[in-house]
């Protein structure tokens, strides 16, 4: 295996996993789990559910091994599955919340923004803003890559990212110069 090129390694592992080599798939899990977990926590907002979403991501990836066509990198492909799983998780949670009466959830105490850390601030963003922000800031993805992951035009990524940064600036103003 060529270790100088992580993408080539990923594709080789994916090819072997597609041929039924479970060890190769586990190696792929090891390579991407930490990175995707960070994204999952940022998108979901809590560690336990993020772990579930991460599991569903890799299960989804395994069942869709044959569908990988190599148009995007393995990293982008896995990230896209994670984002879709996170969106699905949000939808199911929304349904549960609706059933359990939304107003039963206590509101955040006044002034809590002052002690809000970055993760909490990210959690305050709308899902659309959160997605572009974490993909850009954590994954260092280009606008084109983000557009590919989210299946939106590049201009939408630019606009959402700008607005997400604007909201973050407000939420984190006490920490900024």
């Amino acid at each position, binding site marked *: 295996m060529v270790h100088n090129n992580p993408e080539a390694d990923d594709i080789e592992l994916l090819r072997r996993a597609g041929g039924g080599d479970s060890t190769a798939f586990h190696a792929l899990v090891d390579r991407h789990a930490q990175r995707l977990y960070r994204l999952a926590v940022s998108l979901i907002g809590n560690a336990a559910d993020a772990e579930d979403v991460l599991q569903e991501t890799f299960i989804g990836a395994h069942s869709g091994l044959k569908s990988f066509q190599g148009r995007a990198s393995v990293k982008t492909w896995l990230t896209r599955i994670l984002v879709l799983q996170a969106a699905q998780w949000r939808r199911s949670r929304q349904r549960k919340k609706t059933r359990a009466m939304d107003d039963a959830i206590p509101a955040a105490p006044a002034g809590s923004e002052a002690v809000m850390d*970055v993760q909490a601030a990210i959690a305050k963003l709308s899902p659309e803003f959160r997605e572009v922000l974490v993909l850009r800031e954590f994954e260092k993805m*280009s606008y084109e890559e983000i557009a590919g992951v989210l299946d939106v035009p590049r201009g939408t990524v630019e606009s959402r990212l700008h607005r997400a940064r604007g909201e973050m600036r407000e939420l984190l103003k006490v920490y900024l110069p």
Partner: protein
Amino acid sequence: MTPCPSSEQLSAFLDDEVSESRAGELREHLRICPSCAAELEQLMAVSQKVSESPAPHLSQISLHRLHVRVDEAMDQGLLRFVRVFNVVAACVLIAGSAWLMMRTHEARTVESTTPAAPPWVDVAEVSDTPTGAYSTPAAAWYLADDRGDESP
């Protein structure tokens, strides 16, 4: 001085997502516009704050759980394949059995509807067309003698 760029353009400039010519114009503008320079500095601070926030770590136990879950999913996939294979095999078996039963039934129906030949047809055939032991020369002589012929 060129007009102030939008905050969105500054954000894209920060991410190195504007064309080289536009980046040159913006650099020139930022050099002489303190307001836009301050805006860019704020955007940079936000970006830095987010990207440098501590990353949550997936513990070894969680990673182990993840591998176990993936293994379970793989096994379930295999089980699903076996189940599908069994269903297909059962369908083929049922269809084959039904086809065989239909064929047998058709053969019986044809047999029962075909009119039987009258009994004298068989007799005539036996007497007119000697076969088996009667076709031997000795049998022919015997039959000829029996019928009163002079020659076989």
